[in-house]
């Protein structure tokens, strides 16, 4: 999976280079919806849906993410939302992402997902396992409320065991307090 991501993002940067996609859009797509906390606006992957401007570029362009896959979700929808410290409340910016996720899940009715709940390192291990579980279920409940069949959504908590950002500061911690929707 990781290798596939790397290949895909490498391809994306190639497109960006050829096509002079505005830089912030490219980086947004590259980081999935990770920019969400810093911009506080619901964002994600508009860049990829941009039509190539010339046939020459389009022949060089990769096919793009296969619809209904994790890559598709990451790039075109946004696979993750972020939480405040010690909270599992869905914030306004996250609602936009989850609404897109719900629509996407309805579009690809055969897809099942696991929502991962994660925490920053500024809590104790067991409490964070519980908090991550709470966050994963907050995401699940939101999607279910939007009409996604609960049976399609599993949850798992990783507590503080799988940070995304490796720093030891608020910038990293805000990226790690997250709910990630992963296609099974």
């Amino acid at each position, binding site marked *: 999976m990781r290798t596939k991501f790397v290949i895909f993002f490498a391809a994306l940067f190639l497109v960006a280079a050829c096509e002079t996609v505005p830089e912030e859009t490219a980086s947004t797509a590259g980081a999935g919806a990770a920019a969400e906390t810093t911009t506080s606006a619901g964002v994600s992957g508009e860049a990829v849906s941009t039509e190539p401007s010339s046939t020459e570029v389009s022949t060089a362009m990769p096919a793009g993410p296969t619809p209904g896959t994790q890559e598709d979700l990451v790039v075109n929808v946004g696979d993750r939302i972020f939480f405040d410290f*010690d909270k*599992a409340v869905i914030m306004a910016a996250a609602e936009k992402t989850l609404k897109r996720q719900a629509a996407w899940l309805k579009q690809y009715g055969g897809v099942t997902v*696991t929502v991962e709940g994660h925490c920053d*390192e*500024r*809590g*104790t*291990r*067991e*409490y964070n*396992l*519980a*908090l991550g*579980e*709470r*966050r*994963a*279920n*907050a995401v*699940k*409940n939101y999607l279910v409320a939007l009409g996604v069949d609960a049976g399609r959504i599993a*949850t*798992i*908590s990783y507590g503080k*065991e*799988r*940070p*995304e950002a*490796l720093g*030891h500061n608020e910038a990293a911690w805000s990226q790690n307090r997250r709910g990630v929707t992963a296609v099974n």
Partner: protein
Amino acid sequence: MSAYRRHTGSFRSAILALALLAASGSSARAELTIDITRGNIEPMPIAITRLVGEGDEGRLGQEIARVVSADLQRSGLFRPIDQRAFIQKPEAMKVRPRFGDWRQINAQALVNGLIEREADGRVKVTFRLWDVFAERQLTGFIYRSVRTSWRRIAHKIADDIYKRITGELGYFDTRIVYIAESGPADRRVKRLAIMDQDGANHAFLTNGRDLVLTPRFSPTAQEITYLSYFHDQPRVYILNIDTGQQEVVGDFPNMTFAPRFSPDGNRVIMSLATDGNSDLYTMDLRTREFRRLTENPAIDTSPSYSPDGGQIAFNSDRGGSQQIYVMDADSKKVRRISFGAGRYATPVWSPRGDLIAFTKMHKGQFYIGVMDPDGKRERLLTSGFLVEGPTWAPNGRVLLFFRQSPGVGSEEGETRLYSIDLTGYNERLMVTPIDASDPAWSPLIP
């Protein structure tokens, strides 16, 4: 200031004690002791001679003396004297030590002994602990074991000495189970590992394929309960240390975590998450009966039984933030006990029953502390960027915890185990082959 002293008087220093004993000319009532309830004590000078034996046994006798010395030194309560300073040869002490020779090098206590090979190949160790100034034997035991268990004999001798001098049970013949960590933080490999209390006989118990966390010893059996992400399903397991057999505890559709054994070893108490909400449950390991203890929309986790099994300390955010609560095991009545500034977590009841150790988070710092079971008399023992997960030595006098340093720049920090006295003194690194977290101290090995 010295805290070892003789009960005959209020004098505090060895020199004073010596002077007074010499003046009184009597030592019959003198008692060599260390008062370990006080902090920052001056370690007692002790001479630990090699155990006398023939050939291989003699070499083993020196190794045993070395392990005994290391145990006692790490306790912070004893200062083993360099063997090169000894005047009397160990071989010459078969009858009685020449106490003058040991007083001359300022030894307060003296340990000597014999090691012999028995007909069945086992080793027989005889040791004696002497009060150098009172010129009398304080204790002495004979141990027999298979040769490969010689380290346990050494730890038992260290426990005997510790007990005789401090009046408290020892903690050297014990083991530590912990989580060995390696690799980058986002793909951390975590393995269950076990070692003797002094770091010897280290072994990995799991292969690192599955994420494992928070091991705890059974109080009665060679078993460990812990959390494993086997098949990406976080569940509580029990591992038999001797057979290597692993068994999931119960069959639940959701995450079970934060397991501990009850004091009688018959139950596991743990959290079960249902629709994102974590509550406390017990599972009777014999009847498989499953019993719910809390029913609250808050997080309830990190349970810890009092030694008599009558109460359960646990962590909950039912009051709005993470705090420590105590539940009466029968009535299920719950009261909050942590009221200081900050958030409180990981309550762990002392084996003596008199204290609860905890992790506290306040203004970006983490602390390890202890409080009375009613929440009074909070004392913080150590702090850092991240210190977490206290566990008690079986005598309730020493704690182990883990300390994670944030690292400098792009350099990742270390995560290591440390021991600290209940007094807050004598914080020491516990050497592990790689990074280490989530320690749990075993009971004294039977």
